[in-house]
């Protein structure tokens, strides 16, 4: 007898079909994974079940939860179920909590809404629930506000809110996508433990095959509003019966073919050298007359990048990766240390000559925030010409750059909102390439992309590196990606480089405890689930 039985769930938003004939079952106490790329309808399925689909959406079919059809229930009955028998947590821990209320009040609110306890009783249960999700009372008072907690801790509070009434089903929509690998591992442990200890069923929605592999007993693969394949996780991962599943796996295991960088010739200098770089921030005074405390975001960092080399920089968020990249790009001043590019010192702002600036470009993580929405692609891509002077053949150069990254020349007349996330990232690469820099800093450049698009963009980056002799500084929290495309890797923790060396050597035989922790926390698909035939193809 299944807890939730979804039959032929169809959802249309203003006539556009979003879900078509979705069928699946979740047994009581089971961890069920729903995987697919963005836009495949994973989140919409969860929202439709909760009766929270956007305005203008019409759902049809059946979804029997503990004997009641969720799709036929009136709103009043649904509010009784939400938070009570079905809990839900979302991707973004920064916005899932109300910043004006204490964490104790927010957890207690769930109980009070469902009249499950008196005010005093609710606070007691809130206390106990927060302790259960790893926020014990001696260190995490009920009176804390969300801004006093880290991202992982906030996600724990969100989980406490969703599980305070011990629901029979918890829907977790990309619960760890916005978190660091080590925090992700802890949150996944917590969810697994809650499901096991309380007999709660968990519906885990994610794009990450490795996360599902380590969590779910059964899994369903979604594509374009349909479930194309479902079954026991191990069996499904081994057989990969459906073509789409195969392509998804091929993309996640895909390794671009790249030649390792040639060792530097004798007498040739490093392209980039950073020596003892220190970047400090002045924090607000803790008291009226106390001195400003200082935060060392980058603490005596030294590194070199050779021409044509690909160097990875990994670390958790807040470790100083992006601050270091800003200093290298000459956007922020250093408090100590020297950065040299081609032997000449990098200085911030206008003090660096444009010809020197033109040797470096950058590609950012967010394909949506990287472009001025009011400009056409031609103007966006040609922006770096500001450094070199606009050449006569600027239009032709833009066209060539767009074609190099796999787009069409006539795309230059379009606005950025006409492109998908992957296409935008290609345009960002075209913008970086247009003035032929020697070094491109890729700041989490593929982190926001779906696996198949990511594989294509990585291929593109590797091909461009070979044809243009580019050096890359590849900043990422994703060890898997860094392993595929870099020669050397630097591991950063709290502003310092704690380990560095050849990528394969560091990742297979890590020496520093932090590197080991990062590697241990990275979710992986068990090696024996991968088909030998598939591995040979890539």
């Amino acid at each position, binding site marked *: 007898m299944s807890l939730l039985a979804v039959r032929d769930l169809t959802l249309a938003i203003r006539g556009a079909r979003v879900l078509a004939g979705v069928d699946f079952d979740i047994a009581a106490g089971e961890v069920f994974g729903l995987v697919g790329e963005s836009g495949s309808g994973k989140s919409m399925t969860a929202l439709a079940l909760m009766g929270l689909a956007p305005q203008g959406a019409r759902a049809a079919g059946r979804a029997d939860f503990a004997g009641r059809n969720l799709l036929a229930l009136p709103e009043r009955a649904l509010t009784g179920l939400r938070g009570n028998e079905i809990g839900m947590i979302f991707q973004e821990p920064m916005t899932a909590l109300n910043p004006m209320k204490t964490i104790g009040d927010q957890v207690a609110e769930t109980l009070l809404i469902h009249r499950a306890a008196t005010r005093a009783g609710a606070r007691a249960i809130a206390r106990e629930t927060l302790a259960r999700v790893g926020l014990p009372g001696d260190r995490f008072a009920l009176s804390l506000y969300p801004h006093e907690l880290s991202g992982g801790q906030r996600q724990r509070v969100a989980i406490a809110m969703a599980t305070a009434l011990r629901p029979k089903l918890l829907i977790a929509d990309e619960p760890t996508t916005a978190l660091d690998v080590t925090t992700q591992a802890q949150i996944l442990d917590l969810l697994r433990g809650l499901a096991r200890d309380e007999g709660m069923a968990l519906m885990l929605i994610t794009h990450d095959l490795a996360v599902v592999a380590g969590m779910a007993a059964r899994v369903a693969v979604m594509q374009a509003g349909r479930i194309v394949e479902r079954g026991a996780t191990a069996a499904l991962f081994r057989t990969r019966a459906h073509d789409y599943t195969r392509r998804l796996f091929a993309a996640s295991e895909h390794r671009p073919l790249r030649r390792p960088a040639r060792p530097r010739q004798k007498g040739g200098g490093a392209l980039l050298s950073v020596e003892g770089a220190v970047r400090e921030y002045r924090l607000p005074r803790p008291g009226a007359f106390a001195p400003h405390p200082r935060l060392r975001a980058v603490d005596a960092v030294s590194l070199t990048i050779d021409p044509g080399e690909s160097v990875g920089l990994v670390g958790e968020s807040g470790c100083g990766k992006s601050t270091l990249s800003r200093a290298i*790009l000459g*956007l922020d001043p250093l408090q100590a240390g020297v950065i040299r590019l081609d032997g000449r010192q990098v200085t911030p702002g*206008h003090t660096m000559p*444009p010809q020197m*600036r*033109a040797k*470096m*470009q*950058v590609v*950012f*993580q*967010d394909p949506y*925030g*990287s*472009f*001025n*929405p*009011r*400009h056409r692609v031609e103007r966006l891509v040609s*922006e*770096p010409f*500001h*450094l070199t002077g606009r050449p006569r053949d600027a239009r032709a150069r833009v066209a060539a750059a767009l074609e190099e990254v796999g787009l069409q020349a006539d795309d230059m007349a379009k606005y950025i909102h006409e492109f998908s996330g992957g296409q935008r990232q290609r345009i*960002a690469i075209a*913008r970086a390439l247009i003035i032929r820099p020697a070094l491109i800093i890729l700041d989490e450049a593929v982190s926001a992309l779906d696996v198949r698009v990511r594989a294509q963009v990585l291929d593109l980056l590797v091909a461009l590196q070979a044809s243009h002799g580019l050096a890359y500084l590849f900043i990422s929290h994703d060890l898997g990606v860094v392993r595929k495309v870099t020669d050397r890797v630097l591991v950063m923790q709290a502003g310092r480089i704690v380990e560095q060396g050849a990528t394969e050597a560091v990742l297979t035989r890590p020496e520093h405890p932090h590197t080991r922790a990062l590697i241990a926390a990275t979710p992986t698909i068990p090696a024996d689930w991968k088909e030998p035939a598939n591995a040979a193809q890539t």
Partner: protein
Amino acid sequence: MRAAFALGLGLSFAALAAALVSLVWTPHDVTALAIAERLRPPSAAHWLGTDHFGRDIASMLMAGARTSIAVALVAVGIGLGLGVPLGLLAAARRGTLADEVVMRGNDLIFAFPSLVIAILITAVFGPSAVNAIIAIGIFNVPVFARVTRGAALSLWTLDFIRAAEVAGKGRIRISAEHILPNVASLLVVQGTIQFSLGILAEAGLSYVGLGAQPPLPSWGRMLAEAQTMVTLAPHVAIFPGLAIVLTVLGLNLMGDGLRDRLDPRLRRAA
């Protein structure tokens, strides 16, 4: 909401049309006094009647619209012209002395009641429409500076600004090329709201005798002159009052509608 926007557009353009037409034609000469014809109710000859000097109210409303719109337009222009660059500067130099000076200067202006400043200016320079423009315009500066700075600050954190910095562009160029086009829609909306407030402020100043001086017609002064005769000839007060209410209502509805149409977030949701 479409109907409200259409109504707003209609009312605003009616006021504008009346002002423009009055430049070349009004039903009667607004400066011609005809004491024998005074306080006539609406009729075929005088559509909205006459006032206590026998002047045609319809003609005076049309000419008054000219004063109101001119004062409000120039006052908004002063606010945009000074406030937007100041706001862009404060955002570009966030947290520096320049930012502090601009924003505290704004606070200083906000701290004074606008009417007191207007009285001060007219006490020193004498009452006139030009001085009313200056008084209203000064108070538009901090409004536009704050709106611009607030919107610009969130834009400065976006990656496309970082890309422009990497392309070697300075803060002034980035402000003009990247920030301004993205706050423009907000400024258009704020502009319509300040425009309607400007019309109200001009009417208020003229009502207390600090704005347009006779014989320049003004809706505010028409109200002031009519108030002693409200019981005798209510139409003399009602029509200028209606003109103010309908114009301000129209501009506000238009501003609301423009916000819904120009805000990319709202547009994407639609």
